[in-house]
Every structure is written in structure tokens, then in C-alpha cells.
């Protein structure tokens, strides 16, 4: 038996799902629709499906349509409507819509403990009588009412199929009914959580203090990600991967495997996958911290504060989260852009994301700083990060033609602040990790093997005598002509840039292999170094990011993003090169 959990965002649905399902939780696509739904087994064998939070099942609304399609195409056996007892009006509106679907439904009145403390506990019996379905008060956080909920859901069988009405009369009628229900069954109390949230917001959305608060929180997140926890996990991951490579290498040697095949496994597959996995800890740490901020309710405030400046770029306030994620990795950033507004706003957000220098480029900056600007790593990183942001923002601004149609879909609810639930954040992070790893194993594996092949074989398809004679070198040599106006024409640099399409860290690892004597040999001037760094900062996103863009917005947009980035990179590097020549020589 399957039961779907449906309810508003922020009603504690995720907490309920976590509480009810202990064994085999699977995150995946709901069959038939590309929306992320979690599935799990509850005690007693019922399979639970956690659908995304939604306010209404209206067709042609982004979230509502998706859930509506899910429920219509693969109707679950039962519906559990989850309503926030401290604030039942909107939840009841959705419930009235759900009842029109004709699926046996029970109402779970969540956060009942908070409602009690507010002195506003709804009368479950009265609601049950008025609605005609079982109403079970629960507290998912405390575990109250869980067994009763499952039992009632299993027992409930009656449903009156009516068909969802979308006309205006229906909307007015539903709200009228909601008001009658609340007048009869929901006493007025003091919403303590709301009062607390208002007090906090007096600072966090204050006209002046909002900004330093935002900056401090973001700085904290980034410090923890790149400096603290993320960096530590990264080191462990590196060590683990190295050990694995050594072990596999020893094994292959012992088995007497052919040298070329050994190279394929070690340099090709393991090396390529490893370079991608090595920055997985950073991405996940960033994602986890942002998930905590989301769960606490703060990210809604961030979107509220940032909506006005984002609008000037043709983006929505919600794009801010996607852009933040872009500093970790473009892949989750592109996925996060799904909620960033209208299709036009989402597309523009995706175009801006590559300008947020992703964490995979950090090894490049580190190596170059060590080689050419010793002691100035932080300054270099700041210039590059800031440069990317400024350029991207300027391009967004320049390309924005204001139309009146953009304002309509920005409706942001500010939920009460609450202590973020670790389990929710961990679950969301695990889902992201799974998605990332799946992508790594498909697209990146293919691309890795391809590059390995180009690197190992020469023009006669024999194992190349040295790296300089490989197909990849030939390709690099051919491309290096393009880079002459930018000041760097060494074939090894062009080759490294091609490998950078695979994964940005490959730029450094490739240069390490091709130029063991050091980076200095590859450049003839400081200006060329700066031009190369500028190009690396801006050019095409890695194959994983491009694949993500293609899935979200189609191959056409993906191609345009790649072209736009390469064009921006080329022009900016050219400008930097010539400006640097003038000033530095």
C-alpha cells in the first residue's frame, strides 16, 4: 500500500517522513515526472512517498502542476494531508483541494505541541466532523500520534471522487469554507514562534543590519566549507583515493596486466574519477550548510533581502542560493536554479552561475600563486573571484530588457524561524551526493576515458612514445594557435584547457604530467600568466555542469552557455593580456 504525504512547505512534512520511515529510504524520481520525491517504508509495510511541499494544486503553477500530475498519473492508495496546526488556514485550503481528487485521505495535524503551547490547539473532532475524514493530531518532532496516523491511513477507504475545480468560484468557496472551519474549530492563541521570528527579523531584515548579518552568515558558511570542515574532508578523500590508486596499481602489476590497460585503469578511469571525487567533500559541505540555513528559515529572508538587486539583473531573489552554490560546484547550483523564478529568470541564473568561480578551480589558483605570485594566494583568489562576479553581473545587467511579466511569480513565504533539523539536511545532502555520483559515473567516466585515449595513443593509433606525440598533443597544438593573441601558445597549456572541460582540476593535473619541470617553463611573461588565469576562470563549465544544464534547460541553452563562456573568457583574457603588457610588461 502506498501513501503520499502532501502539504505546504514548512509544515514539518519532511520531519514526519523521516520519523515514519526507518528502513530503506530511497530518493529518486517520482515515476513519470522529473521531480524529486523520497520513498520509504513505514512500520507495518506501508510505502510512503514524500512529495514536494506545495501551496495549491493549481495547474499552470510550477509546483502545483507537478504534484497534481504525480497524483493523477500514479495515484497512491492513500493521501496523508499534513497541516501545520499552528497555522492551519493554507494547509486546510490545500486539503480541500486534495479531497476533490477522490483518493482516501487522512489529515495529519502536525506541530500539535506548538499549537498547545500557543493556546490554540485545533479541535480535531470538530474538524473531523466538518471534513468527513479522520483528523489525527501529531507531533512529528516528538513522535506523538505516529502509530495512530498510520493505522487510520491504512483503514481509511472511502473517498468521493469529484474532480479538482480550478475556477474562481471554487477558490472563493474553498476559502469561505476554510474560514468557517477555523472559526468553529481553531481557537485564537498567541503564535509564539511568529513573535520570536519577528524579533529576530527586526535585526536580520533590518534596513541597515540585514546586510552585515547576511555577509557574516555567508562568510561563516564559506569559511567552514573551504577552510574548516570541507577542507578537512577533502584531505581525507584525497588520501583515500591515493591509497586506492596504489592498491589497484599493485594488484594490476601482480596480475601482470598489460601496461596500456593498467594505464587505462589507473590514469584514465581512477585518475579521472578521482579528480572529480576529490572535491565532493567541499560541494557536500557547502550544500549541507546551505540546507541547514534553508531549514532554519533564513534563506527565505536572504531571498527577500536580495530580490531587489537580483531583479536589476533580471533574476529573482531565490537565484541567490543557486549562485551561492555555484561557488562550490556548478552542478548543484544549476539544480538549485530550478526554483529561481520564471523560466526566463531560471535561464539567466544558469548563465550567471559559471561566473561564480567553482571550488574545482582552487587547485589551479593555488598552483599558480605558488609558482608566480608567492605569498599572494589570497589576493590572487580575491581578484579572480571578484572579477568573475563583477563581469558576470555586468553582463547580466547589460543584457536585461525589463518586461512587466516578470513580477508575477515571485511569492515567497517567510516561515517561522526554527532550529534546523540535522536529519533533514543530511537527507537532502545525501540525495545530492547520489545525484552527483551518478553523473560522475556516466558522463565523466566516458569523457575521462576519451581523454585518456587521446593522451595515450598517437596519430598512428599506437601507444605514443611520449606525451608530446599523442593525439591530445596534436589537438593541443592545433588549438594553441587560437591562444596566441592571448599571450600563451604553448601546446601544453591548450591541452590542459581541453582537459579542463572534463573537470577543472584536470588543468593542473595535466600540466603536472606534461610539464614536470614546473609552470614557469610554459609562459614567457607575467602578462601571459594573468591572461591564462583569466581564461581559466571564465571558460566553459565542466562537462558535468554542461550535462546538468542540458537536463534542466535543454541542449540549446547548454550550447549557448558554453559559447557565451568561451567568448567571455577569450575577450576578457585578451583585454587582460594587453592591459597587463602595458602596465607590467
Amino acid at each position, binding site marked *: 500500500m502506498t501513501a503520499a504525504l502532501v502539504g505546504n512547505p514548512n509544515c514539518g512534512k519532511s520531519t514526519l517522513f523521516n520519523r515514519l520511515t526507518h528502513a530503506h529510504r530511497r530518493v529518486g524520481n517520482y515515476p513519470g515526472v522529473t521531480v524529486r520525491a523520497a520513498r520509504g517504508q513505514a512500520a507495518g509495510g506501508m510505502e510512503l512517498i514524500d512529495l514536494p511541499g506545495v*501551496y*495549491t494544486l*493549481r495547474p499552470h*503553477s510550477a509546483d502545483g502542476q507537478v504534484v497534481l500530475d504525480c497524483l493523477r498519473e500514479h495515484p497512491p492508495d492513500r493521501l496523508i494531508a499534513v497541516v501545520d496546526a499552528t*497555522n*492551519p*488556514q*493554507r494547509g486546510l*485550503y490545500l486539503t480541500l483541494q486534495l479531497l476533490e481528487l477522490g483518493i482516501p485521505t487522512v489529515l495529519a495535524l502536525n506541530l500539535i505541541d506548538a499549537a498547545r503551547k500557543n493556546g490554540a490547539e485545533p479541535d480535531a473532532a470538530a474538524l473531523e466532523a466538518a471534513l468527513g475524514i479522520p483528523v489525527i493530531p501529531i507531533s512529528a518532532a516528538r513522535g506523538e500520534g505516529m502509530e495512530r496516523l498510520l493505522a487510520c491511513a491504512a483503514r481509511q477507504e472511502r473517498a468521493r471522487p469529484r474532480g479538482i475545480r480550478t475556477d*474562481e468560484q471554487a*477558490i*472563493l468557496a474553498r*476559502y469561505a469554507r476554510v474560514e468557517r472551519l477555523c472559526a468553529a474549530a481553531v481557537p485564537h492563541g498567541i*503564535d509564539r514562534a511568529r513573535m520570536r521570528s*519577528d524579533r529576530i527579523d527586526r535585526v536580520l*531584515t*533590518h*534596513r*541597515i543590519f*540585514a*546586510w552585515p548579518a547576511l555577509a557574516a552568515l555567508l562568510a561563516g558558511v564559506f569559511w567552514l566549507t573551504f577552510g574548516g570542515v570541507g577542507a578537512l574532508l577533502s584531505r581525507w578523500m584525497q588520501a583515500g583515493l591515493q591509497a586506492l590508486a596504489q592498491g589497484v596499481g599493485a594488484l594490476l602489476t601482480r596480475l601482470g596486466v598489460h601496461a596500456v590497460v593498467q594505464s587505462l585503469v589507473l590514469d584514465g578511469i581512477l585518475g579521472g574519477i578521482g579528480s572529480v571525487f576529490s572535491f565532493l567533500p567541499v560541494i557536500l559541505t557547502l550544500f549541507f550548510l546551505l540546507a541547514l540555513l534553508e531549514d532554519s528559515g533564513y534563506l527565505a529572508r536572504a*531571498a*527577500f*533581502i536580495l*530580490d*531587489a*538587486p537580483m*531583479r536589476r539583473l533580471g533574476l529573482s*531573489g531565490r537565484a541567490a542560493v543557486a549562485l551561492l552554490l555555484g561557488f562550490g560546484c556548478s552542478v548543484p547550483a544549476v539544480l538549485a536554479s530550478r526554483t529561481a523564478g520564471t523560466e526566463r529568470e531560471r535561464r539567466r541564473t544558469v548563465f550567471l552561475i559559471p561566473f561564480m568561480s567553482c571550488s574545482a578551480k582552487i587547485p589551479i589558483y593555488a598552483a599558480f600563486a605558488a609558482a608566480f605570485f608567492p605569498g599572494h594566494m589570497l589576493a590572487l583568489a580575491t581578484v579572480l573571484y571578484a572579477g568573475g562576479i563583477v563581469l558576470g553581473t555586468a553582463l547580466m545587467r547589460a543584457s536585461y530588457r525589463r518586461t*512587466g511579466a516578470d*513580477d*508575477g*511569480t*515571485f*511569492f*515567497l*513565504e*517567510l*516561515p517561522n524561524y526554527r532550529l534546523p533539523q540535522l536529519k533533514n539536511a543530511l537527507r537532502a545532502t545525501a540525495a545530492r551526493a547520489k545525484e552527483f555520483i551518478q553523473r560522475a559515473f556516466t558522463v565523466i567516466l566516458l569523457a575521462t576515458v576519451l581523454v585518456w585515449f587521446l593522451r595515450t595513443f598517437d596519430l598512428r593509433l599506437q601507444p605514443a612514445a611520449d606525451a608530446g606525440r599523442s593525439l591530445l598533443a596534436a589537438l593541443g597544438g592545433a588549438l594553441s594557435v587560437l591562444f596566441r593573441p592571448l599571450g600563451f601558445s604553448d601546446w601544453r597549456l591548450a591541452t590542459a584547457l581541453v582537459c579542463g572541460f572534463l573537470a577543472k582540476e584536470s588543468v593542473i593535473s595535466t600540466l603536472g604530467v606534461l610539464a614536470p619541470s614546473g609552470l614557469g617553463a610554459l609562459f614567457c611573461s607575467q602578462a601571459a600568466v594573468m591572461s591564462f588565469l583569466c581564461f581559466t576562470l571564465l571558460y566553459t563549465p565542466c562537462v558535468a555542469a554542461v550535462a546538468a544544464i542540458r537536463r534542466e534547460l535543454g541542449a540549446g541553452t547548454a550550447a549557448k552557455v558554453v559559447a557565451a563562456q568561451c567568448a567571455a573568457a577569450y575577450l576578457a583574457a585578451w583585454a587582460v593580456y594587453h592591459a597587463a603588457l602595458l602596465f607590467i610588461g
Partner: protein
Amino acid sequence: MRLNGLAPGQTGVVVDVDGPLRRTLLEMGFVPGTRVRVVKAAPLGDPAELALRGYRLCVRRRVLERIRIVRAAERVG
């Protein structure tokens, strides 16, 4: 008057909604007779935080122009 004419802290009662977003706004709860309070504006002036039906909703100023209201006294208690 329109909802964008309210200052922070003031309350109005919805009379009607017009424009292409009418259906969306109705569904969000801006049904005639609903009490709406303007809580505050974002630090840069837009969007505005509204209190209605027990929750807080942020709406862009442009959209507030579409909602016709009458001023109401603040509810005591």
C-alpha cells in the same frame, strides 16, 4: 485605494483583485474580505512582507498595485 498605498504597520481589507494575476492572487488568499497587514518593506524597498491568513508572504510592489483595498483599523489583541 491599492495595497501598495499602505505604510508598514497598516492594515487593509481586500475589496477586489484585477489584472492578469487575479487567479494566482486569489489562490494565494487575497480573496475579497481578507485582512492584510503590511509588516515591512525589504531593506531596498521591494518586495513587501505582508501578513494575511496567519502567514507571511513577500510580494513585489508591482503586484501590490493590483489589489484594491479599504483601510481598516488594527485589530486589538
